[in-house]
């Protein structure tokens, strides 16, 4: 029996954790960005209550992403964090400002402050997550197991465009989530916004996808050389099909399908990113094998993950099931 490739399994698990984070926290960050555009207090309460029971669990996937990277690819963690110092700190600050808003806005008459903090925090966190992704794709130079680039290397037109595209994407997720969770005027508004953000998101994906291959020859070879093209071409084709289905379901006023299509777009983008990254964790200086912790570490945590992740998925699904259906007025506990 060939030995298990623990590093590869962990790459898949860590990737799944990051994907889970984007799929779950994406819509609640999106709600934060849409917050100022909601028309009154009543709508804002409903939007907030639609994510209040689950946001905390959603954000835990980000902690798993960070903690998991530290555990299984410590060298990658040690290189990425200093390289992306400013956007990481800004993202964390944004997450603080939006996270406390959930509880704080119910505790005061002057909700406006926390509404703004919820919006600004969500926007900054999203923008930074996009910038972090863009900066990673650009590549991070290392030397002697340490970051060896400059302090502003992360800030480029490409990373900023990635950030903006992610903002559009999370807005799409947020809007389709509201389509699913609300009714009446608010749902109608959410449906219209979802249509607009769907265009913006598809445009973002397009620009991002066409730009990426020009960053590194490695990417170009994967995406545009024959016969690799045979394996990679289905990804953009599926993006187009999912986009088409998204518009159709919005037009037909479906509740759930638009949300699933929007999430589907993110899954496809993620697959595309995996193709670009592999076999690197930090393109193009650290491969999976360079950065992996020893098998004793990987195996030990894998045992826990194998037992606990299915449990986590089960009770997380259970919690979403408990809070299924439309959110109605006055359902908070305050």
């Amino acid at each position, binding site marked *: 029996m060939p030995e298990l490739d623990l590093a590869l399994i962990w790459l898949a698990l860590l990737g799944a954790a990051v994907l889970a984070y984007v799929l779950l926290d994406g819509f609640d960050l999106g709600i934060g960005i849409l917050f100022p555009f909601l028309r009154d207090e009543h709508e804002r309460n409903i939007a907030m209550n639609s994510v209040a029971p689950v946001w905390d669990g959603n954000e835990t996937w980000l902690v798993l992403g960070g903690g998991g990277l530290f555990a299984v690819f410590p060298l990658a963690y040690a290189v990425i964090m200093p390289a992306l110092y400013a956007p990481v700190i800004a993202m964390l600050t944004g997450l603080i400002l939006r996270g406390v808003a959930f509880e704080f806005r119910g505790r005061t008459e002057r909700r406006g402050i926390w509404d703004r903090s919820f919006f600004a925090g969500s926007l900054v966190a999203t923008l930074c997550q996009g910038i972090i992704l863009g900066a990673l794709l650009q590549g991070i130079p290392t030397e002697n197991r340490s970051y060896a680039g400059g302090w502003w290397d992360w800030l480029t037109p490409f990373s900023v465009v990635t950030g903006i595209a992610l903002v559009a994407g999370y807005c799409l997720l947020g809007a389709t989530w509201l389509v699913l969770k609300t009714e009446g005027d608010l749902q109608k508004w959410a449906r219209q916004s979802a249509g607009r953000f769907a265009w913006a998101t598809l445009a973002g994906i397009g620009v991002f996808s066409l730009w990426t291959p020009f960053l590194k020859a490695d990417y170009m070879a994967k995406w545009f050389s024959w016969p690799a093209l045979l394996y990679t071409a289905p990804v953009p084709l599926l993006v187009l099909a999912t986009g088409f289905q998204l518009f159709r379901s919005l037009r037909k006023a479906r509740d759930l399908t638009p949300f699933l299509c929007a999430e589907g777009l993110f899954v496809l983008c993620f697959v595309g990113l995996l193709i670009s990254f592999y076999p690197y964790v930090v393109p193009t200086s650290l491969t999976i094998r360079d950065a992996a912790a020893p098998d004793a570490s990987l195996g030990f945590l894998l045992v*826990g993950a194998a037992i606990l992740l299915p449990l986590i998925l089960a009770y997380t699904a259970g919690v979403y099931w408990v809070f299924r259906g439309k959110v109605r007025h006055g359902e908070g*506990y305050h």
Partner: protein
Amino acid sequence: MEWFTALNVARIQFAFTVSFHIVFPAFTIGLASYLAVLEGLWLATGRNVYQRLFRFWVRIFAVAFGMGVVSGVVMSYQFGTNWSRFSDLTGPVLGPLLGYEVLSAFFLEAGFLGVMLFGMNRVGRGLHFFATLMVALGTLMSAFWILSANSWMQTPAGHTVNAAGQLVPDDWWAVIFNPSFPYRFVHMVLAAYLATAFIVGGVAAWHLLRDRTQRDARVMFSMAMWMATLVAPLQIVAGHLHGLNSVAHQPMKVAAMEAHFETRRGQPLILLGVPDPDSATVRYALEIPRAGSVLLGGAADAEVPGLDRLPREDWPHVPTVFYSFRIMVGLGLIMAGIGLWSFVQRLRGRLYRTRSLHRMAHLFAPAGIVAMLCGWVVTEVGRQPYTVYGLLRTAESGSPVELPAVAGSFAVFVIVYTAVFGVGVYYLLKLMREDPAAGTADRAEEEDRERTGMLRRLTAWAREER
């Protein structure tokens, strides 16, 4: 300004963010267990007072927990941003421990918190109680793993070094249950319970000072004072055992705590004083001769090592460790005293009538939190100049980041934390001031209470028996 380096600012930044952070988990570890007890009592007895108290404290819990989560996310990234060499070299050992914390604790807490806060009308009482229990279990699991990781940094075991210079696991059992872990874990969980008991007791006392017939405040006060009576002495024992463990594994930390500069037999126990590392003396020392040897070595003439065993540059900052330790112990003794006093008044049936006790309980509401912070300062500063005791120096743990980056991020954290968590604490205090029994006519009968002191009941019962 030679002191103002990227490394030192990174140290202050870590101390700042972790100190802010730990207050909320410590409070929520205790409060989650308290909520589970309240809900359990409500389900078992059907008394509404327990349900009202649950509702009162669960809102406070939600605010505190939210602050704990967001300040905790920062911690999980700060190892990398400011301490990247530490992360690279210790990741194979510490990473999986933190990974287990996320998998076994954070998801459990976060997943069931939603049900606990918003689910009462959507799931049955039984399932809701289960959710509360899972949140409480999650907080304890979290303490287990993070204390294991921290203890390994204090008393590393079960590891080897690989070709890249990384500390790698060799025996996981030895890593997790490293020599100081059991002591630290017990000491910290008791500290969290005690800190929470004094906050609950302080809030109850504030309400009793306004209206001592307030039934809900009485129930809270009684429960909190039981905890003080029972847990505070237990904590002193646990703390002492932890101290003896440190004598065995980190004797130089203990030497700094006690300001023992000189290795000698018949070491005194310095109660108070002003330690001066430069002259290696303690000025204005108030000391008990030989008591240090008795306490730490088990005999009046036992040899107790002093800091002279180490070169001067390897000493931790003695005054910080010395004073923090004394504040912690002093507050611990005061808390035990309040516990004892409340027990005497309880026996005399005067628990709800002794205004001076209520004033003390109110005044010392933050005592447990302050003591816990001081304890952490003792153990973390006492570990210096190492991040992993004896293996990895703090000076070799930092990131290759420059001063402006670290100072800039520190400034951002100071501003955001002070503003956000300052307001958060204000909201907590506002919630604590609300009347838990608002809108109910559930008042205790003063006359009835006076006669049913435990001592009186006991003597009455003894008389009848005779």
